[in-house]
């Protein structure tokens, strides 16, 4: 079935046919015809952000928390260039989003027209795929393919650049069913490889599951199957920053997060294991530390839908290309059919060893009665919100992000939104708004550092306008804390430009936006202040003044191995050698 309509109408029709209910955007000359169509319908809600970067991060928050693709709509030129950071962020973290940009009319492309930018050229390396639509007849097919590409295989951001004359002209609209794409990634894993993995699992004495964002990408079924497999085998499990919540933090085989700021027991288990089962994680350098010292004694299996993730950094012994849920289902089937065997005695001993490591209590810190320690603030936040039926946590980037990962417990997938791969300061506020728009009744908290928070604070206007009751929980150390920590460890305590001066009064700032401001600098008042934040039905900026010089531990310094982890304040000077200091 094809219908005649204008390009602008097709855009809205295609969004409806793809089941889109929300678009985050910002208008401008080159998208006015589409905005005109948005105005004349009620099925799709348009959220007017305050900056295009905010639109893209909000779409990311929406996508990560719902499992559906997020959509952003921005104008040509500056609108498109403002979207670049968000696109790169989504590419690094495999978040499915569709960004629609306006473009100058086709007959003016290449003439340095007003607000012209080579959008497909600029965004080619930061999208999974992008399209410049040259004729209206091609528009609906491209729109549907854009959704297909963004959400199939390894998810990621796509961009459709639509010249203004294409929006005005009339053409044939075709529905999603007519969409043709040769892009059909493989989802089923190779049974031979799967059987090889199962055989290795039956014999393993010191196995560990190393799980990542791919489990979340694969959908809720993947988390369910993972829980079944972990509980049935009794193998310990750790996760990257991106995979938190796939296995519950309260689960009995949970080791906590691994990596640079991961838990001692998780990193040592990775270092000493004899079988590492990587499920949807990509051996990021925050995980491996020094590659030649990374888990030297283990057989490594790697399940990933993207063949380029396999053998990219770490040599894999058992490679399995496929979707996590599909592969886990087959692993369970094969393992059960072979009699549900594990080397139970050895695995019990392995848990004994892990429990010894646990006794190190690597998250211990020295509390204070006079200043709020950031760890304490997060422990109290956890205590007071843990039982909330639908709690979603976003973060900015820095020490607070790592502390949030360490001290908050995630029981379910899609409840944790953080910028991992790109590490984009300014991600959290708009992402929290995207999450809240998707889940109006949920408790959505953005754990922020004051420096990151200032990077996209204009989005408080969006929160107030749409009554999105997001809680901005700012751990204010008046420092670019993570930078300061590295300068302490690496640059002889020369704190070059790593403090936040001339900070705004956050309470007044909140009031200026029409939100509520809360200030707290006393540990004794903290619980009440948090309760006040939770009780308030509307957006809140919580200025939580914390210890200024706290460092984030544990920490594996750059260029070091897992078993060379720093646990606390001891002697941290000069721990990163010349070779490590070139690493980031």
């Amino acid at each position, binding site marked *: 079935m094809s219908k005649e309509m204008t390009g602008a109408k097709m855009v809205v029709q295609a969004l409806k046919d793809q089941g889109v209910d929300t678009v985050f955007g910002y208008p401008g000359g080159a998208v006015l015809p589409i905005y005109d169509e948005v105005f004349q319908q009620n099925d799709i809600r348009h959220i007017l952000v305050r900056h295009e970067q905010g639109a893209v991060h909000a779409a990311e928050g929406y996508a990560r928390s719902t499992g559906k693709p997020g959509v952003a709509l921005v104008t040509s030129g500056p609108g498109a260039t403002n979207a670049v950071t968000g696109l790169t962020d989504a590419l690094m973290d495999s978040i499915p989003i569709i960004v629609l940009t306006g473009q100058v009319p086709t007959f003016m492309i290449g003439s340095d027209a007003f607000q012209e930018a080579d959008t497909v050229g600029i965004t080619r390396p930061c999208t999974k795929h992008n399209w*410049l639509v040259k004729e209206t007849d091609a528009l609906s097919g491209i729109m549907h393919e854009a959704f297909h590409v963004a959400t199939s295989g*390894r998810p990621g951001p796509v961009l459709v650049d639509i010249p203004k004359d294409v929006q005005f002209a009339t053409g044939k609209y075709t529905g999603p069913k007519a969409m043709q794409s040769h892009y*059909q990634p493989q989802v089923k894993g*190779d049974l031979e490889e799967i059987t090889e993995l199962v055989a290795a699992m039956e014999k393993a004495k010191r196995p560990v599951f190393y799980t990542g964002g791919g489990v979340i990408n694969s959908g809720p079924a993947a988390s369910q199957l993972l829980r079944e497999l972990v509980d049935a085998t009794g193998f310990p499990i750790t996760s990257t920053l991106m995979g938190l919540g796939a296995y519950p933090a309260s689960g009995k085989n949970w080791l906590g997060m691994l990596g640079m700021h991961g838990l001692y027991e998780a990193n040592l288990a990775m270092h000493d294991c004899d079988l590492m089962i990587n499920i949807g994680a990509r051996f990021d350098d925050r995980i491996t530390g020094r590659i030649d010292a990374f888990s030297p004694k283990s057989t490594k299996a790697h399940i990933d839908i993207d*063949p380029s993730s396999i053998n990219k950094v770490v040599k894999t012994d058992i490679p399995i290309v496929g979707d996590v849920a599909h592969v886990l289902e087959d692993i369970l089937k094969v393992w059960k059919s072979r009699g549900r065997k594990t080397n139970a005695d050895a695995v019990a001993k392995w848990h004994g060893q892990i429990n010894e490591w646990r006794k190190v209590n690597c998250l211990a810190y020295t509390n204070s009665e006079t200043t709020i320690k950031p760890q304490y603030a997060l422990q109290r936040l956890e205590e007071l919100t843990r039982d909330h039926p639908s709690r979603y946590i976003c973060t900015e980037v820095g020490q607070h992000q790592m502390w949030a990962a360490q001290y908050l417990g995630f029981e379910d997938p899609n409840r944790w939104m953080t910028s991992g791969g790109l590490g984009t300061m300014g991600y959290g506020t708009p992402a929290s708004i995207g999450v809240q728009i998707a889940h109006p009744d949920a408790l959505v908290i953005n754990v922020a550092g004051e420096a990151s928070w200032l990077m996209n604070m204009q989005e408080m206007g969006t929160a107030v306008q749409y009554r999105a009751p997001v809680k901005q929980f700012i751990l204010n150390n008046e420092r670019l804390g993570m930078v300061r920590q590295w300068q302490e460890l690496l640059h002889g305590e020369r704190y070059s430009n790593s403090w936040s001066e001339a900070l705004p009064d956050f309470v007044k700032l909140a009031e200026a936006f029409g939100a509520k401001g809360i200030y707290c600098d006393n540990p004794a008042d903290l619980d009440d202040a948090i309760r006040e934040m939770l009780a308030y039905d509307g957006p809140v900026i919580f200025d939580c003044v914390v210890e200024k010089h706290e460092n984030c531990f544990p920490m594996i310094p750059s260029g070091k191995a897992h078993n060379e982890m720093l646990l606390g304040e001891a002697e941290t000077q000069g721990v990163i050698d010349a070779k490590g200091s070139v690493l980031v």
Partner: protein
Amino acid sequence: MSALKIKKGSNSHSAYNLRPTFSDVVERHTLAVLVENEPGVLARVIGLFSGRGYNIESLTVAEVDHTGHLSRITIVTTGTPQVIVQIKAQLGRIVSVHEVHDLTVEGASVERELAIMKVVGTGDKRVEALRLADIFRANVVDSTLESFIFEITGAPEKVDAFADLMRPLGLVEMARTGVAALLRGD
């Protein structure tokens, strides 16, 4: 193109060998990449190589299937086995890429390149240039009293060898097409 239809991500085919050897020896591979013939597709492929720091020794591209809108890009690249495998996997994940073939590992292949060279000279040098061209089966496609343009076709090494011989004989300008390659047999 051989009739092999390998799915993206397939690990059953040698082009996507997921168990490469991890040696430090740099190898030279010829890749045939079948892509959607659409604007920007070459930029995607070249951008991948420059963005990730891979080498391109030669690259040719032209439409090979008009009705199917497919172009064939032949790339000669170098790298350790791990890098070569990464290059193929990275090419495979470009949405406009339909197939990636590693002609160096999939069997014997034929590689041909065309070059045209302008050789300026008189007297003995001119005679010698003509004599060598004959030995290399290079054709004269343009001639003045003081210059020839030779056209030569062959494996890149043959073109190199001919160019080396022409240099002292007055080679002033050269244009090469880059490698086109096909698997032998059916």
